[in-house]
């Protein structure tokens, strides 16, 4: 054990190195490390946020899909219903139209029948008159016997 002034020299070296570390080594290193820590923390937070957003987006997409599917189903069922209605309507219309045509035909037939009847009546009346003329050999005054002829006509109707 040989204590001498070296001790003072060593203390001076020590002081110098502490000062260097305190002034020039530790603060910049500490700052770099803290900055990095912050960057990493921020990055992790951003990653976590992104992950959550992705999950939310996926959830939204699936919901939208579900909704769209439901809408599509609804549209399809509506279309089916509508087409059914259309067919039914068309059927009804056809039926009505058919009935109308049948009715018109019937009424035309009736008219034709009536017209034929009228003609027949007129001819029958003329024939009757001619017949009576022949029989009586005498001209019958149409105006004088009009009433009788008319009655005959109505009897034929």
């Amino acid at each position, binding site marked *: 054990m040989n204590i001498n002034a*070296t001790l003072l020299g*060593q203390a001076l070296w*020590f002081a110098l190195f502490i000062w260097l570390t*305190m002034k020039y080594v530790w603060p910049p290193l500490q*700052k*770099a490390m803290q900055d990095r820590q912050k960057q990493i923390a921020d990055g992790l937070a951003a990653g976590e946020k992104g992950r959550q957003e992705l999950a939310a987006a996926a959830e939204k997409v699936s919901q939208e899909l579900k909704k769209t599917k439901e809408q599509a189903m609804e549209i399809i069922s509506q279309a089916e219903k509508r087409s059914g209605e259309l067919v039914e309507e068309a059927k009804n219309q056809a039926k009505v139209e058919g009935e109308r045509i049948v009715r018109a035909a019937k009424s035309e037939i009736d008219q034709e029948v009536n017209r034929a009847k009228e003609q027949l009546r007129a001819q029958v009346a003329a024939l009757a008159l001619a017949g009576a003329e022949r029989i009586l050999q005498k001209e019958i005054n149409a105006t004088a016997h009009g009433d009788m002829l008319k009655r005959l006509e109505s009897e034929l109707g």
Partner: protein
Amino acid sequence: MATSGAQTSGEYISHHLHNLHVGQGFWSLHLDTLIVSGLLGLLAFGGMMLLARKASSGIPTGAQNCVEMVVSLVNDQVKDTFHAKSDLVTPLAITIFVWVFLMNAMDLIPVDFLPLVASSAGVDYLKVVPTTDPNLTFGMSIAVFFIMIGMNLKFKGVRGLLKEALTVPFGKYLFPVNLLFRIIEDLAKPISLALRLFGNMYAGEMVFILLAVWMGASYWWVPAGVLLSLAWALFHILIITLQAFVFMMLTVVYMSMAAESH
């Protein structure tokens, strides 16, 4: 190894334990201790300074990564132990750990290597491991002691420090005993710090020297001596790191005791 010249074992050993010094009595300097420790410190802290200047907060690479690992290891220890706020304690701890570690690591260079280089350059004595010089360990521990007193004054003030010294642990009526206890306690701190480091490193160096002497006795011993030296060097890596860590850790503990009331 030790067979050069007509040295006896005793001469060889004392040669290795002799410092290169100038001056007489107290006012003499151990140049080897001063130069080796100074060069190591300048290299380490100068390098760290340059590195810290362009330290990036991006992905650390190579040397920056290494330095950051050491520095954050020390900083974690300081944060665990020292709870007050101080800009000094972490740099102090970093300085102690890095510097003491490097000086201890000089022990891993084969004992005769640097002294042989030095003697061929005309320097007769060279004690390579600065921490085997009590001047260095006491220089550091006394500096720590003064910083500790400064810490006491800063956090407690003169009045607080006096009150603590006089009343703890036995109350105010036994103040002479308290004061005596306090003085002994505080003086024991630098002494134990310095002697612990000095003792460990001196003993470790001694083992290397004795192994070298043993190998010098006969060529028969060289293989076993090399193996034993290697084994001791491997074990010594642990001691080197541990002693640097212990010195640093105790310093931080003393600082935290100084900053907090008992």
